[in-house]
């Protein structure tokens, strides 16, 4: 794992003083915006910190909710994440984006919190690799035997008259999509939130969650398929 983990603190026992508080050789990999922001933060500019919090706080809460069941705990974990960000600014090595680094700290803390609370169900679900089992798409939709085995028996119908923007103009549709996402198990919800909702690059998601690209896409596709089913049901019920 890259610098996302490099400045993790707390129960992992990793040191906060591992890296000198100077610009690292890898910081040239940062975007110009990230580079400017980290410089302003290190100078102690409050406006820079406010804008960083305003930009990522909501996403961090949404992420934390995927790891802990209780909203209050999610807020505590997020607050604790910000405190670590403040304390560790000089340790940020620039091997990932600033966002990925902050999300990585949150994931580490949320997992840690889950363990401490003995929330074994959620934690073990996040850690386990159960990707070989269930297929994303209901196997009954495909021919089971004969020449057409493995090909569509009940193919999906095109949504040619729909666009995401049109669908999201309906409050009922938004509520249905939210319910579908909220109902996802943590393993699936986490990858969907990171990749599709927050737009984190696949490689960064893999690094944050310490999963392979194959695992990522198995989980991501299951998550997307469940949301697809919710859209399909919504459109069918509305017709």
């Amino acid at each position: 794992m890259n610098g996302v983990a490099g400045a993790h603190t707390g129960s992992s026992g990793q040191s906060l003083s591992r890296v000198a508080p100077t610009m690292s050789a890898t910081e040239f990999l940062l975007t110009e915006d990230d580079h400017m922001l980290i410089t302003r933060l290190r100078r102690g500019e409050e406006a820079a910190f406010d804008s960083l919090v305003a930009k990522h706080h909501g996403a961090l809460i949404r992420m934390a909710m995927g790891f802990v069941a209780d909203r209050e705990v999610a807020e505590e974990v997020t607050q604790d994440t910000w405190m670590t960000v403040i304390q560790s600014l000089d340790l940020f090595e620039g091997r990932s984006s600033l966002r990925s680094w902050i999300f990585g700290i949150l994931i580490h803390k949320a997992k840690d919190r889950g363990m401490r609370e003995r929330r074994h169900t959620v934690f073990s679900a996040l850690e386990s690799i159960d990707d070989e089992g269930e297929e994303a798409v209901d196997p009954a939709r495909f021919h089971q035997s004969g020449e057409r085995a493995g090909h569509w028996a009940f193919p999906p119908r095109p949504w040619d008259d729909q666009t995401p923007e049109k669908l999201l103009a309906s409050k009922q549709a938004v509520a249905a999509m939210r319910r579908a996402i909220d109902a996802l198990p943590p393993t699936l919800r986490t990858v969907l939130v990171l990749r599709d909702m927050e737009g984190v690059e696949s490689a960064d998601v893999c690094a944050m969650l310490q999963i392979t690209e194959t695992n990522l896409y198995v989980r991501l596709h299951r998550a997307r398929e469940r949301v697809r089913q919710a859209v399909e049901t919504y459109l069918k019920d509305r017709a």
Partner: protein
Amino acid sequence: MTQSGEEAASEITCREVAEWTSAYLDACAGDGRNARIVLHLAVCAGCEAYVKHIAFVRRLVGLLPKAPEALADPDGLRGAFVARHRKQ
């Protein structure tokens, strides 16, 4: 001997295309599989619709309105940020 489009497309089933759709859309399915999916999509309306559905969902999730979230203790956090700078 050159394969026809349909022969090449039949080297992958609709079920496999469906399972690999998300990786395909993110250009992470691998070159060989990617080529088989492209050929398959050219002749399979069901898979074409399915791939478009997943692309639709991917975009939809990104566009979902995000509820604004307020900090539980904004003053405490800002205070910690200021204090950190003063210490240095």
